[in-house]
């Protein structure tokens, strides 16, 4: 009986944590009413190094970001894609993708970057059982979805916000590092047969 009540408590806590998530974790909007993740970072790293690092980062993220262009000498633009997953425990499938723009501007002693123009494209299962984009024109993520798809749309906004925060954190770590950031390899566990 104790086990059952503990389990129910655990479920309630998980549910509560999940229920509180959407309200506090949706991106703010800019002056045009578009979702934006915006951050200014002050640093002591010289401007030239920041430039090299920013371009290096944008060009290395093959799957997440595609480097598009440089605007002048100190501004750089990339486009990105987030896959939205519908996941329950260890199974799930992609339900759509969010396309966005990523921009960086470098100045002496600081840089700023922002993610904006988020557009959602729903996926549809094709005849071969693969999930593919059902349209080529996305719907702005700020749009009100109407009552019918409200909860689903909120979930897309929450997942996008989480992703934007994670991408921002990774970008800042890269920009602050002297050497290219390499993910540390996991230590191998050695099993000894001595007994």
């Amino acid at each position, binding site marked *: 009986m104790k086990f059952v009540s503990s389990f129910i408590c655990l479920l309630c806590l998980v549910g509560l944590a999940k229920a509180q998530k959407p309200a506090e974790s949706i991106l703010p909007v800019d002056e045009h009413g578009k979702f934006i993740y915006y951050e200014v970072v002050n640093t002591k790293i010289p401007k030239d190094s920041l430039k090299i690092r920013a371009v290096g980062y944008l060009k290395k993220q093959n799957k997440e970001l595609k480097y598009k262009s440089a605007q002048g000498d100190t501004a750089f633009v990339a486009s990105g894609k987030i896959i939205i997953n519908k996941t329950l425990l260890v199974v799930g499938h992609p339900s759509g993708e969010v396309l966005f723009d990523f921009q960086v501007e470098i100045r002496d002693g600081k840089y700023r970057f922002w993610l904006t123009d988020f557009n959602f494209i729903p996926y549809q299962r094709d005849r071969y*059982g693969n999930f593919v984009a059902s349209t080529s024109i996305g719907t702005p993520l700020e749009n009100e979805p109407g009552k019918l798809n409200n909860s689903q749309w909120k979930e897309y906004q929450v997942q996008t916000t989480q992703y934007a925060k994670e991408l921002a954190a990774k970008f800042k770590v890269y920009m602050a590092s002297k050497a290219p950031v390499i993910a540390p390899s996991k230590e191998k566990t050695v099993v000894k047969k001595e007994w």
Partner: protein
Amino acid sequence: MKIKSLLSLLALGLGTTAYAQDATPLQISGSVDTYYKYDFSKTGNIKTYFANEQNSVSLGMIDLALKKTTGKASFVGELSFGPRGQAQSIPNAAGAYDETENSFHIQNLYVNYAFSDKFSMAAGYMGTFVGYEVISPVGNFNYSTSYLFGSGPFQNAGIKGTYAFSDKVSLMLGLFNEWNQYSASRGVSSVGGQLMISPVKGWTAYINGLHGLDAYGNYSTIIDLTTAYQITDKFKLGLNAADLSAGDDKFGYTGVALYPQYAFTPAVSLGLRGEYFNYKGVSGAADASVAAITFSGNIKAGGLTFIPEVRFDSDKDLSQGFVKSSLAPSKTASQFSLAAVYAF
């Protein structure tokens, strides 16, 4: 004790979620569909595939698909159960078309290997690359299907390679068994190909060709054009045109269908299908043609889509056996249907 074990497993599942997110998850998806149809002549006149039972709340199918990708290799396994995916599909588990068999139907069962970003190969039993509409109701805008769809092919077992020259052009070539069969009765007998071109953003066209042993035992050649253009965020236009010729003059058809669709909101769309289909006369006999127009709505709420639909068919050559409510022959047929399709 059993409840405790079950809860322990659930708790373990919750606990392992974070770990599992690092790995490519097993994809589970599928659909469930059901419908009501009423033919205004009070008999099931329109015989195209699915939605054919008169004045009955009837079943479509439950469709279950698994997909797993590990590195460059992946597999897809998709099975369906229910009238749409059993007796009304070809073949059933016994490998034969039999209305009385109550089995399951394999929609897809294949493995794929991506040798590079540009070249991949797949082998197994796959949904056909020919045509606009598919068996799964999730893949179609209209619930009832076209004459072009009903003439097949539905699936092809074989091996195929696809090379993507760019995002805008790709070519698929493959060798296949006879159409709609799990295994070959006369060896690998068909060759097929698909050229995909995407001239502008939102417009994709597939030019398909397949030659070989068809589902009726004839050596046939089908040429098919399937294309769709998302002209604006609200308006989409689709087109399917096909010609099939049996080398020994036993069977053949030509058809064209146009699919304009307008999305009033992301959740509410209206679409039309206009189709002209011509059965080629066998051994010098006269052709017979049918025309059909279908208005469908798509109202989405989460995973659920309601599809109200009205359809009018014209059969000037009396090839379809339409009848009036008095059972006298008729050149026209019309029906209303309401389908509910849940995709997960």
